[in-house]
């Protein structure tokens, strides 16, 4: 089957498409749009919405002999199906003829939409899905613009909470069953289901059952209408006001591709971004709220000995302290590859050693891996650490006790949690990071840096796939860009006067110096697999990632 092609004729033109695709996917790969509701490339075909109806015909053959039936010109006749077929449930075959733009197909779509809208409440002004609703889009594109329905619409349950995360509005539901299939196939639990029959069909669930899962919010993304909405995002902002930025989830080393939705410097939600090699179209619910910690505990001003000061002054004081020697650097797994490279240079210039801690967490076998820090492999590749870090800083503890360390330059890690609380009084701690914690409160110098939503960078996930995250919102005014900060320290430490590089320039430098990262200046949005064979001796804690790309390599997308 692999790489086999079949000839099909779509709307009068001949094409070659991969065998085994359904008509919908085949058309999508050729740029021909077929509207659909219930079909989802990552779920089983249900064929319940009837929106993707097309006309289909196959080359005619004599039933008795199997010989081709020819017309008067000697060309094989096309035996058109008497009724339209659903393109999601029909596979392409050799010589198949498909019509997606005929008046008949347009009529089918109009009629299907009319049926779907019969009992739809049309409350778009108060519906959170408005603006990204398939029913809204298709009604605009293919529907009739007026209603002929004069009877009263069915009444179903509205505003019914499913757990704490989702609000269910049964009136808006068009019975596509995507959510039901997602729960069954991906979560592995039947949470949602249909009750009643005919036009009274309702999406429902048991109130007292265990309806929770860390992947439940994917049904909200999958819902083509506003029947399932996210409680946390409900009535917060209309989607058309939100700017989207491609990002990577910092919840674990799975490196889930995300989209950050923001307006006016405020992040409203995070949704998954399709990447068949990493997360397909899904992400964990916990990963969607990684931005909340910055709303609660954002470090927004510099301090020296717990009294506020100008950031520039704090940076220059930090630089002076580093010159005294006896420096240890504590890096963290949320720093980008670029920062880690600079940190390596800084460590060389100061004669410091870099320490790191891992953040073990339970591996759920799906999209939350056993490592909480998303870029441990980046640290290995840039060479700032040589083995997989331990969950504590025991090495550093021994160094401090031995008297070799006078200053700790700590990036974002909470040293108190990592087992150094009893030793912090004896050393100068320079804390720099985006979040407040016990270490930042006790540090001699505390500097606000950028969070992962406020800067550009690269992370290497558990598959050694290097992925790019982009700046979504502006950092607080007092914060200093990590790269500027580390490069500034490096300049002071070496005494060389070089221009502080931009992220792009820095990537070019890294690409020229590091063989594994030679392509890091041009990482595509789906990421790039790096050669991790050098680290095959290291025992990584994460389970293997799910292979979503699987059998079908070309998927239609949402």
């Amino acid at each position, binding site marked *: 089957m692999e790489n086999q092609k079949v000839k099909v004729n779509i709307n009068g033109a001949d094409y070659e498409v991969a065998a085994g695709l359904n008509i919908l996917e085949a058309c999508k790969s050729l740029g021909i749009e077929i509207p659909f509701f219930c079909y989802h490339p990552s779920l089983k075909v249900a064929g319940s919405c009837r929106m993707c109806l097309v006309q289909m015909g196959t080359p005619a053959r004599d039933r008795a002999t199997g010989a081709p039936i020819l017309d008067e010109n000697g060309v094989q006749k096309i035996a058109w199906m008497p009724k339209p077929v659903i393109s999601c449930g029909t596979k392409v075959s050799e010589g198949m003829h498909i019509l997606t733009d005929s008046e008949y197909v347009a009529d089918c779509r109009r009629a299907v939409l009319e049926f779907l809208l019969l009992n739809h409440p049309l409350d778009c*002004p*108060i519906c959170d899905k408005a603006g990204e609703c398939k029913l809204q889009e298709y009604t605009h594109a293919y529907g009739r613009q007026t209603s002929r329905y004069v009877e*009263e619409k069915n*009444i179903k349950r509205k505003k019914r909470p499913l757990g704490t995360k989702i609000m269910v509005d049964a009136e808006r539901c068009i019975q596509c069953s995507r959510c039901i299939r997602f729960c069954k196939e991906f979560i592995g639990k039947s949470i949602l289901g249909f009750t009643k029959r005919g036009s009274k069909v309702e999406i429902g669930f048991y109130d007292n059952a265990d309806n929770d899962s860390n992947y439940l919010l994917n049904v909200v993304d999958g819902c083509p209408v506003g029947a399932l909405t996210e409680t946390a995002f409900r*009535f917060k*902002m*209309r989607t*058309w006001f939100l700017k989207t930025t491609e990002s990577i989830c910092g919840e674990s080393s799975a490196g889930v591709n995300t989209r950050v939705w923001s307006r006016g410097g405020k992040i409203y939600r995070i949704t998954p971004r399709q990447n068949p090699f990493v997360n397909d179209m899904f992400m964990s619910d916990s990963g969607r709220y990684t931005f909340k910690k910055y709303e609660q505990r954002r470090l927004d001003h510099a301090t020296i000995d717990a009294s506020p000061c100008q950031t520039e002054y704090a940076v220059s004081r930090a630089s002076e302290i580093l010159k005294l020697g006896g420096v240890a650097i504590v890096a963290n797994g949320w720093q980008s590859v670029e920062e880690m490279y600079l940190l390596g240079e800084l460590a060389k210039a100061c004669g410091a050693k870099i320490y790191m801690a891992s953040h073990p967490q339970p591996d759920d076998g799906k999209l939350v891996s056993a490592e909480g820090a998303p870029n441990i492999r980046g640290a290995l590749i840039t060479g700032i650490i040589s083995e997989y870090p331990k969950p504590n800083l025991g090495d550093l503890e021994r160094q401090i006790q031995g008297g070799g360390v006078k200053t700790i330059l700590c990036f974002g890690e909470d040293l108190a949690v990592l087992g150094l609380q009893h030793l912090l009084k004896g050393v100068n701690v320079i804390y720099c990071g985006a979040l407040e914690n016990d270490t930042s409160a006790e540090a001699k110098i505390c500097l606000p840096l950028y969070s992962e939503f406020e800067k550009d960078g690269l992370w290497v996930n558990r598959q050694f796939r290097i992925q790019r995250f982009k700046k979504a919102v502006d950092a607080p005014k007092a914060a200093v860009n990590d790269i500027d900060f580390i490069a500034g320290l490096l300049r002071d430490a070496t005494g060389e006067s070089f221009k502080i590089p931009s992220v792009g320039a820095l990537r070019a430098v890294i690409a020229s110096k590091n063989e594994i990262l030679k392509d890091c200046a041009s990482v595509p949005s789906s990421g790039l697999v790096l050669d991790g064979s050098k680290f095959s001796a290291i025992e990584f804690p994460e389970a293997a990632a799910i292979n979503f790309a699987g059998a079908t390599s070309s998927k239609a997308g949402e």
Partner: protein
Amino acid sequence: MAIIVERKRLSFWERTYLPQILSGLYITLKNFFAPKVTLEYPDQQPVIPQGYRGAPVLVCDSDGRHKCVSCQLCEFVCPSKAIKVTPSAIPEDSQYAFIEKGPADFQIDMSRCIYCGLCQEACPEQAIFMGSEFSINAYTRAGLVRHKDDLYKIGGVVPDKIMKWQKIKEREAK
């Protein structure tokens, strides 16, 4: 290509300018005796005609229900970005909880508003209307920003012919 236009020669009376002066004086004198049209604004206030586009306000329906459901279409359509809506859920104990959504705050910055009326046109609930106010002043910039309560107070009641939400409530009660 330049076109040369021949200048018309003036007649004798035209060269004296007297007929023009006299006809001008005639118009002036005629208005001198005509009824006065000037209004002693602000002591006298003008009559605002129907369909006048004054300051935008929010209105209630005949039951006194706040009509805005904070769909933010006015905010979207506003060309001068004068409107800022903070959407929220209607509290459960309200008699209108079934409508689900209403604004927590609705700000119109009158120093930005250009009185174009697009907000009124975009509103699917007929909750925002162009009122009759045309002279708005305050001592501070913040004073020119009107909030939800002020807007409903100025807007008052506009009788609703359709009563959509009341019908929905009756239907659900059945």
